């Protein structure tokens, strides 16, 4: 080797090292600087199978943070939103959760959509003691001192759907559900409520989230001849079921009740013949008509455009989750996890778009209103109102005031 090539090699190596240094920079320890803003971390699916629900929740998050900052921030400090699009991938959920906790060092996490994603990231936040708000309606039962759930649970909604169905449609039920923890546990709740109401479940079928072709399923359902179909299908691909069901002419034959229908843009993108008559029960509908509901819808439309006619419970619960947290921070006078948790456990309540929302100290879930509705000509027709529904899913087994070390998800015994 000559001297020339030796120095060339050195130059190459140095250049490479410099390039590596530039790339590695962000991962190198930074000296801690006094962080003025309060950091709110968000993990939601803006794209992918859950994207239709996620994108509005992301907007609701931005809207809520914007409102807080417009009113002077929290404790005199601005709130900084650090949001990652998890692209409907659980892998990315765990990755970005670690990033939010260890690199961005956020003060609270608001996020998670599917129950699978929640269960994947919950241990990370438990270990690092990062406060976690889960704002999506789900199958209920999570009992964890570090976690606060603002979405509706089966005891607040599914029981009303089943009640209505047994009263108006008959006793034989066919259940179809998404094949992951939400679908399985919700199906268990449906079975329990059906049996308690004197009905019977003919069959329960599960479908992974990427299934789009339901023709054989529709044939199976017809063969079983049930009085109704109860659906816990989730995500953009499962929406195909409702389309295929209508196309097969089943709408007039067998009625359908669904726990996750209309939370995305179903009413705006599907025609009335497909959506009419499907019974749902959520904590919010965009045409509730109350002053708070209207103010929320108008505010979101002002920021994101008049096409936002499909706001639902996922978006208002996201908003309410952030506002509840903000209230607790004000009450605690600090963003420290332990202090905020204590503040939340005094029973904070806010006036949200869906009405009064109160955090129940023992269960860490919300006491909120529920409404039974069905689409009619692509607009929600509210049939019944259930005020101040208590999250009684665990039947008192979850009491984080008495037993603060509890950390599990209770499931229904069927």
């Amino acid at each position, binding site marked *: *080797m*000559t001297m020339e*090539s030796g120095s060339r090699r050195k130059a190459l190596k140095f250049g490479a090292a410099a390039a590596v240094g530039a790339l590695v920079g962000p*991962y190198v320890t*930074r000296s801690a600087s006094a962080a003025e803003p309060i950091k709110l971390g968000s993990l939601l699916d803006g794209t992918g199978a859950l994207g239709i629900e996620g994108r509005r929740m992301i907007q609701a998050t931005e809207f809520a943070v914007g409102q807080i900052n417009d009113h002077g921030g929290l404790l005199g400090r601005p709130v900084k939103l650090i949001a990652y699009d998890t692209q409907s991938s*659980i892998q990315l959920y765990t990755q970005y959760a670690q990033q939010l906790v*260890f*690199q961005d060092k956020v003060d609270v996490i608001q996020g998670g959509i599917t129950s699978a994603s929640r269960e994947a990231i919950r241990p990370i936040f438990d270990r690092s003691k990062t406060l976690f708000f889960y704002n999506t309606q789900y199958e209920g039962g999570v009992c964890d001192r570090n976690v606060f759930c603002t979405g509706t649970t089966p005891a607040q909604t599914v029981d009303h759907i089943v009640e209505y169905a047994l009263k108006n449609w008959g006793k034989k039920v066919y259940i179809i559900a998404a*094949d992951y*923890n939400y679908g399985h546990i919700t199906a268990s709740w449906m079975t329990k409520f059906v049996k308690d109401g004197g009905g019977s479940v003919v069959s329960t079928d599960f479908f992974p989230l990427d299934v789009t072709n339901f023709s054989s399923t529709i044939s199976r359902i017809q063969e079983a001849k049930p009085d109704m179909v109860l659906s816990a299908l989730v995500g953009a691909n499962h929406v195909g079921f409702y389309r295929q069901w209508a196309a097969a002419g089943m709408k007039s034959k067998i009625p359908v009740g669904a726990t996750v229908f209309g939370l995305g843009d179903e009413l705006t993108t599907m025609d009335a013949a497909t959506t009419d008559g499907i019974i749902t029960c959520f904590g919010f509908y965009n045409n509730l008509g109350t002053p708070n509901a209207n103010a929320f819808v108008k505010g979101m439309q002002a920021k994101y455009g008049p096409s936002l006619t499909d706001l639902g419970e996922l978006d208002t619960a996201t908003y309410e989750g952030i506002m509840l947290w903000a209230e607790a921070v004000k009450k605690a006078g600090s963003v420290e996890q332990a202090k905020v948790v204590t503040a939340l456990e005094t029973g904070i309540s806010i006036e949200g778009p869906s009405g009064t929302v109160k955090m129940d100290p023992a269960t860490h879930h919300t006491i909120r209103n529920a409404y039974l509705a069905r689409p009619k000509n692509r607009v929600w027709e509210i049939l019944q109102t259930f005020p101040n529904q208590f999250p009684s899913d665990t039947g008192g087994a979850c009491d984080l005031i008495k037993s603060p070390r509890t950390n599990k998800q209770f499931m229904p015994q069927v």
Partner: protein
Amino acid sequence: MKLLRSSGGAQTVVILSIIVMFAVPKVLSEFGVMQATLFAAVAIFGLSQGFVWGYAGIMSFGQAAFLGIGAYTYAIAAINLGNTQMAALLAIAVPMLFAALLGYFMFYGRISDAYVGVITLTVSVILFELMNSTSGSQYHIGDAVLGGFNGIPAIPPFAPPGKPDEPLDQIGVWYVAMSTLIVAYGFLKWTLASRFGRVVVAIRENETRAMLIGYDPRLYKLLSFVIGAGIAGAAGAVFATWGGFISPTVFALTMSAQVIISVLIGGLGTLIGPILGAVAIQYLINVAGTQHTIDPSLGLGIVLVAFVLLVPQGVVPVVRSWIARLSSTSRTPRAKTAKTPNASEQESRS
């Protein structure tokens, strides 16, 4: 002479890697160490694909199958046995067993190379769909609930032998991951320098000639396939420990696509190429997800097409040939022979 030279290069790589292994925890933050561990895991996976494809000439399009089997085996074994060393060993052994069966099915059936690609791809899709359907609580192996789409959370991380209740911290896991990478690299280098390795390469270059000399290509392909699966299984175990979580997405097409792209841009027919390529692609994916200018798939697609058109041999062989041209001692780039897929493929076009 050539053997000495290539082992000289390998020694440099190993020494550099050991330096990196000790330097990283000193230089990077805890989060940085965690990211580095992920890079090490994908690098091991890249090695597996690089060996099977670049040296054995097996176009495995579903190497993610073995990554996933390794990861799930580790998770299930660790939860059930409580002994993470045993779990790690099983994570290497079980994919090898599966590869032996699948390899026997494919190679002894004289299936052509393109078909090998499609069959391995299909097998990984089947595994994905199978694992995705195991959400009910009735699907469990011992104490480990398979979880379906939900995945298996709370996987016990590596613990030192004899101290199962003191799992390694992030830095400890990094050491294990990086050592696994170094050992895998060393093992493959040694294998390739051995007689076995040279027969494997000969078969890749001209199967008929190797057969006529008296070697059974099916056996050598099968063994290479099995070795590759074992390394992928090791990557799976590291991956499972890194995340503490595993889900069916590890079997997805995107996982196989990612490693193939990594090998391609790193350099087919080298070992260091896939390592660097895997790290680069993982870094790109991380960055792509957090920025909002360009859609991640679009960016990756452009990168892939650009590389296939402009730098089909990959970065490392190109860089090597630059270095060779810059230095006065010439060195024949090995990349050319490595790149051409089976010439026999062109003959069979009719």
